[in-house]
């Protein structure tokens, strides 16, 4: 069925190396997105109308444009239009951070607006300072609401990194393709085994993270 080819040479190690490339890019983008998203999200409840409008436009762009289109613009478009030459890795990190920050900002905004104003008022009435209110009352609640959703966002970002093969980064799918092509003669059925393995690899990475998200959600539901 084409699984034997994985045991030949260092094919399995190459495949795992490809996965590492994809995971590295998603990890960097996740870190940037979590930070930037929190900043943007807290700004979205800002009273300043201009900031609000800009952020809303930004979120709408990300909501509508497929990530692959953004990747193409960042990688091919900038080279031609602006004359700057960025590496495929840099382009994908920029795009996934751009996209992830917007998603994260939306989550933060949702969590913030879900906290009733009475919470602020009551804690002020109890004599807490505004700073104390944030630290002891608001932020713990937000973290409980946010954490399962942001973990979910991490799995989505990992899944989306599979697109980077389309702009020429040698990640797990591309390595798989190379192995299949190199062994076309000896292992004509390699495509099944390799793509099945890639499928399983992605599942093995994303599923535990999804489970963690679900566990936290259930634990904090009450």
């Amino acid at each position, binding site marked *: 069925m084409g699984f034997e080819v994985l045991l030949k040479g260092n094919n399995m190690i190459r495949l795992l190396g490809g996965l590492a490339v994809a995971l590295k890019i998603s990890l960097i983008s996740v870190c940037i997105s979590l930070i930037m998203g929190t900043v943007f999200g807290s700004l979205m409840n800002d009273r300043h109308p201009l900031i609000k409008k800009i952020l809303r436009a930004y979120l709408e762009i990300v909501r509508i444009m497929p990530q692959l289109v953004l990747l193409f613009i960042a990688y091919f478009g900038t080279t031609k*239009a602006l004359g700057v030459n960025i590496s495929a890795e840099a382009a994908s990190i920029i795009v996934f951070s751009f996209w992830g920050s917007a998603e994260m900002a939306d989550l933060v905004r949702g969590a913030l607006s879900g906290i009733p104003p009475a919470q602020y008022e009551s804690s002020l009435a109890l004599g807490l300072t505004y700073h104390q209110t944030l630290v002891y009352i608001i932020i713990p609640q937000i973290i409980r609401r946010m954490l399962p959703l942001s973990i979910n966002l991490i799995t989505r970002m990992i899944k989306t990194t599979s697109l980077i093969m389309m702009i020429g980064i040698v990640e797990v799918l591309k390595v798989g393709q190379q192995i299949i092509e190199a062994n076309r003669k000896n292992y004509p059925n390699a495509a099944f085994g390799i*793509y099945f393995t890639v499928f399983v690899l992605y599942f093995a990475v994303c599923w535990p993270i999804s489970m963690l998200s679900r566990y936290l959600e259930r634990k904090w539901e009450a």
Partner: protein
Amino acid sequence: MNVDVLISYFPRYAEAFLLTLRIGWLGILLSAAIGIVSAFTMYFKLPVLSRIAGAYVEIFRNTPLLVQLFFVYFGMPKLGFAISAETCGIVGIGLLGGSYMSEALRSSLNAVPASQAESAEALGMTHFQAFWLVIFPEALVLSVPAVVANVIFLLKETSVFSAISLMDLMFTAKDLIGLYYDTTEALFMLVVFYIIMLVPVSAAGSVLERKARHKMFGE
């Protein structure tokens, strides 16, 4: 940006647009059907079937569409199941979307308060009537925001079809860049057509969400 180039590209993009739209919406219809069936089996806790549905949802929610498509399009023919790229695209969106739709509907079904079912039975409805006339319609309304988000997500995901050489918008852009090297124009048209495809859906979605909220909480 050269306007003549944009105009000369238009017919190719329009054709690709229709193909993308057709495959996308057929896939979404399929995903709705799969989602409803799968959510029902889990909601009613049908033995064996609910386990299968649960495993299906976990598998397809935790793998990228691109990998799913490669497996079905390039991997499965080795076992003798060869399908055309177009069918593969519809089935791919259907299976991926089915798992998301199933989750959306299942959580909405569970979110309908138990008192609704109890009141329906107190009014003399059978279990079947209570489900079809009370619980299911309420769950549908509850699921609107998630379903709208899923539809937009699935339409965006159609962009990876180019990887299995379907002549969709993305493929056309890549092809034209390779042929004429008018990168800016080709990418501009790509963005324009995705806006044409998704802005109406996004706007209709917001209206639908507002209507659903009215249904739940009154005027």
